[in-house]
């Protein structure tokens, strides 16, 4: 069992958990992820490692399906049946010069570790974090502390630049030399944002989030097409060259179980109503 040390609600439907998992925390690097399973009947879901502190790792998730909804009912002191990691290849950190680390929505969760390691490697690090609106923007203070510069965007203009991360990136690319770019967010956001670096030929990484089961290269559920070749996101990724990724296929494969996921979520919601469970209060 893996104990939740702290649980905080960061924004509407967005939660931050610190999970005690020494074997993960001791070896985790930027860009890697864990797979967790809540209980005997639980499914295995991947979550990016967002921070490391002692024997604990931080994950940040949005409630989008049954498992994340159920996870959100847990609180500090509760336990998760299984946690395995760190999985996947770490980010390709090096001293490149000027690097831009971009997070969209809950994808911002992945940015602090990457930015931190890039900074330690000697890079000038520019952060761009974007959300639909100001109240959904997470980790702003943390990113401001790590990055040399931080840009904020909101779709509705309630904070920072009114627009998308891609707009800020385009402006930066036109003004100065950027050597490497990382983009983490929803598939469509990564696709659109990565388009900005194509004309400049800047090496751009995206962190892919296909459906996984084992996360160790055994099942092939997470296969993605990169540069015309089939790759397994769990062991060959999760970060890939953005300009080589077949995003349409990724998005198509993310929808395989949409019907079942909806049914499972509705069933869970109904069950919670009947049992009158309010869930934990996250402070």
């Amino acid at each position, binding site marked *: 069992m893996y104990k939740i040390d702290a649980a905080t609600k960061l924004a509407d439907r967005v939660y931050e958990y610190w999970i005690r998992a020494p074997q*993960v925390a001791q070896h985790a690097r930027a860009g890697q992820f864990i797979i967790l399973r809540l209980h005997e009947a*639980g499914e295995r879901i991947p979550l990016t490692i967002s921070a490391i502190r002692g024997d604990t790792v931080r994950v940040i998730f949005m409630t989008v399906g049954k498992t994340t909804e159920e996870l959100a009912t847990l609180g500090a002191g509760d336990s998760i049946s299984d946690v395995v990691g760190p999985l996947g290849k770490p980010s390709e950190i090096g001293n490149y010069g000027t690097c831009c680390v971009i997070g969209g929505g809950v994808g911002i969760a992945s940015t602090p570790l990457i930015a931190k390691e890039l900074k330690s490697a000697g890079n000038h690090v520019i952060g761009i974090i974007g959300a639909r609106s100001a109240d959904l923007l997470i980790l702003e203070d943390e990113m401001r502390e790590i990055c040399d510069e931080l840009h904020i965007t909101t779709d509705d203009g309630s904070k920072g630049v009114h627009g998308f991360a891609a707009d800020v990136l385009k402006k930066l690319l036109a003004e100065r030399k950027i050597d490497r770019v990382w983009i983490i967010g929803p598939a469509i956001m990564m696709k659109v944002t990565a388009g900005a670096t194509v004309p400049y030929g800047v090496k751009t990484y995206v962190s892919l989030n296909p459906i996984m*089961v*084992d996360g160790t290269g055994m099942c*092939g*559920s997470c296969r993605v097409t990169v540069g015309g070749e089939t790759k397994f996101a769990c062991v060959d990724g999760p970060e890939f060259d953005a300009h080589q990724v077949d995003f349409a296929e990724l998005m198509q494969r993310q929808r395989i179980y949409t019907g079942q996921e909806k049914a*499972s979520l509705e069933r869970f919601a109904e069950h919670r109503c009947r049992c009158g469970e309010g869930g934990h209060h996250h402070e």
Partner: protein
Amino acid sequence: MSDRPADVRIKDFKEVDGGLSADEAIAEAERCLQCKKPLCVKGCPVCIDIPAFIGHVAEGNFPAAARALKEQNMLPAICGRVCPQETQCEGVCILGNKDTPIRIGALERFVADRERESGAELPETAKPTGKRVAVVGSGPAGLTAAAELARAGHAVTIYESLHEAGGVLTYGIPAFRLPKDVVRAEIDQVLALGARLKKNHLVGRSVSTDELLGYDAVFLGTGAGLPAFMCIPGENLNGVYSANEFLTRVNLMHADAFPESDTPVLHAARVAVIGGGNVAMDAARVARRLGAKVSLIYRRGEEEMPARRAEVVHAKEEEIEFYTCANPTRILGEQSVTGVECVKMSLCGIDASGRRSPEPIEGSEFTLDVDMVIQAIGTSPNPLLVSLIPGLERGRRGNVVVDKNGRTSIPHVYAGGDIATGAATVIEAMGSAKKAAAAIDAMLKGE
């Protein structure tokens, strides 16, 4: 045979073969000639003293039979069910020349089941040696190595990346062929010998290679976990599975019980399974139990199928439709699978594997309307860990190179099972693991 009727068994995942009763077992055991030079023992990859255990069964002394079995094999209830006895012990049984061979597998299973139901007796273990051994992977090879080394008195730690032990016994072979309580009970016996199990530990990631190589000896039993794909158009459409994924979703994650169980699997009306091995039969029969009409596509003829004959028969009884001498050329569909296009194959000359080699017949394309395709065309060694260990020599197919004792290019690191041999059977994995364990024991005792 005591198989449940096909029309009943396709409605559930309960075991197909009901096993022998005590009277049947004794009667079968009494047929044994108790050969002075038993060929069956030579036919067994783990060298079970078969005449001895069968002799005890004939006398009705089942606990003694169990002791004799476990002298050489800690997983008898598993082996009794999944070993290809027809090409091993039973294949060389002298009675087979004129009559039917002794049903050694059925007897092994009977003895093991009997012992499990009445409370298992643990074999003795040697005094602690103070030596630490890491076993990577808890499949058939890892469990066998762990059992042998724990019995020899070494402190064994088994690392397993999944949330449950057993490897292919747990995620691969379906419950109707190998019930999961049987697997768990035999794993528990290995652990009762003193081996420690660390689940959720992916060696190379959760355990560093330095930490691993710090053990007095290491046994790698990481298996052939990497699924092969055919590399034909349409392979990444929704509804195309590797057999590994499809079977893992059902066997390990219990997707058949969705939504009680949280893991989903697609339900299709018509399924095509590609391949002719045991895994293909397993996938086809699981799909059948999920309610599909199933077609099996194999590029050679039925007699060339690598699957056990019994599994082919079981599949046919369960109304799996066979398309032999046919090969898929592309999978059709926009986002989800709507069909599979195949070409007929003619079998000409003999290829390197000694089987007739299939060649496509031009213009013979035909289409099957299906909404799911499961590829069961083989697996290769999982490269993840072995690529992270510096100095570990690998063969062309990604397997770890070992000598006849299972020793790798690193003196205190041994390997066995599919990671060393390439995809093979449970019992072959156990045989190679046993050999490696004996060599590790000798090395640790300074012999």
